[in-house]
């Protein structure tokens, strides 16, 4: 299944003015474990999706939150005349279509 169907939340926000942070949060423990086990969500994949260098990307997973946290540099310091997204809240789209073969939800996704 695609990440957009597996995850409960996929969100982006600024981490301060120089970094963008993406959270991928799962509500089903087996799905979270499946995603971790697949080894698909890596700095290299994120770097390719966002067209930055892999060494600029950090990917952590935090078991108590059943979540991944991804950090990459913002293309510009936040604020300023060339700002496109002040709070960095609409930068999550590239993650939605990532495929995880063999990982499936047990119950349908409910809205947040």
């Amino acid at each position: 299944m695609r990440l957009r169907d597996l995850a409960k939340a996929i969100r982006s926000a600024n981490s301060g003015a120089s970094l963008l942070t993406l959270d991928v949060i799962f509500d089903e423990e087996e799905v979270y474990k499946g995603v971790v086990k697949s080894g698909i969500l890596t700095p290299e994949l994120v770097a390719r999706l966002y067209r930055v260098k892999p060494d600029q990307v950090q990917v952590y997973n935090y078991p108590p939150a059943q979540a991944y946290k991804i950090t990459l540099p913002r293309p510009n310091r936040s604020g300023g005349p060339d700002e496109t997204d002040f709070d960095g809240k609409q930068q999550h789209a590239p993650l939605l279509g990532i495929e995880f073969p063999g990982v499936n939800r047990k119950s349908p996704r409910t809205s947040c």
Partner: protein
Amino acid sequence: MEEARLLSINVVGNGFSYQGWQAGVARKPHLVAGDNGSSDSGPYSLGTGEGRGSAQLKRDLGIMLQSASDLGVPFSTGSCGRAGGEVHLQNTLKVVEEVCKEKKLHFRVALIHAEQDKAYLLKKLAEGKITPLGPVAPLTAQDIETSVRIVGMMGVEPYIEALDQGAQVVLGGRAMDPAIFAGVPLRMGLPVGLCWHASKVIDKGHLATENPFEGSPILATITPDYFIIEPTKAGIRSRIQDVAGQTMYEQSSFKIVAPGGAIDTTDCVYEQIDERRVRVSGSKWIPSSKYTIKLEGSRFVGYRAVSLVGVRDPVLIEQIDSYLVEYHKAMARVAHSLGIAPDEYQLRLRVYGKNAVMGALEPNPDFVPQEVGICIDAVAKTQAIANTICGRADPVGSHLSYPGRLCTAGQFAYAFQPSVMQAAPVYEWSVWHVVETDSWKDMFQIEMVEI
């Protein structure tokens, strides 16, 4: 050792559930507190001195200050007036004074000043004590000098000092969010890691609950071995995911850096003790050898005028990238003919429908939609120049020819006439760095006021 109970809300001035608040007050907290600002609002608030609108702020402060008085416990807030500079702090004090006058409340108030002296920062820069925060360029003397104002983000020490001096209300300038809360439990001798982590979880109030839009206040109960998080509005729940999620929100890793150290949450244990409440243990405070303070500075960039036009012509939309190149060239000629120098203005043509939101990060820039909105964005040294550039850009763009053009009457659809809209002036972060300091007292001063 006694447990500490801290009652928090999302942001003072963002509203909260009254019923939820009263339920929280009934638990006899040792502190009622809430954050008042953020750098999320960008450099505009810091640059202009503008803060939060006052009706909601007065309502929130009125309730919280009354409770502080009734309970005989402190009220604490920080990053006053959004950006936490001097003018923002003074404006917040004015609102507090108004509220207290109306409600006949009297308090010993501590003001903690966070705006920084440029001479002090220039000295620190020369000593090599200022480093970038994240992937930004090193700070220069010019960055400091051209800033409108610069604030330091205080840690918990000034709050503790203010409480030690008998403050009943603490109004902090720019502060690290958890610092607003952690002073009270730390003074009670509770473990540093738990005090900081609990403060971090509650510092955005209802975001640590399942249904943030219900606006429930949050109660943290801190003991020597763990802390418990619970919403106070009836029927609202906090689950492990909300508490752990709040721990990681807007952070780039699982060590949350603070002045003088970091909160390490890597080995935390989260337990759902009942439907509504989460218990957390294992949070560690790791002291660092240096004491560093985050600096935020704002600089004026220019005046802005914008226009928004619609394009529905498929012939143009298919070749929009090459069209934009010619459009920019045409506008450069126009500016030149009007005697406007290239360094007096910036023109951006933001194409909504293609790549306006993600800009350089857009992974799919070749997508061809059926309509686009072109936002013509002129930023210039004067409002007159911004208005002129934006005003000329509309007819120039509408009549600019391109290969295969059919709609020879013009390619822009205007929803508004006149089409030029004057926007807010533009500021940018001139300082986003960290300074190493010998003592917080070099950067933050406490002033006591009786109201």
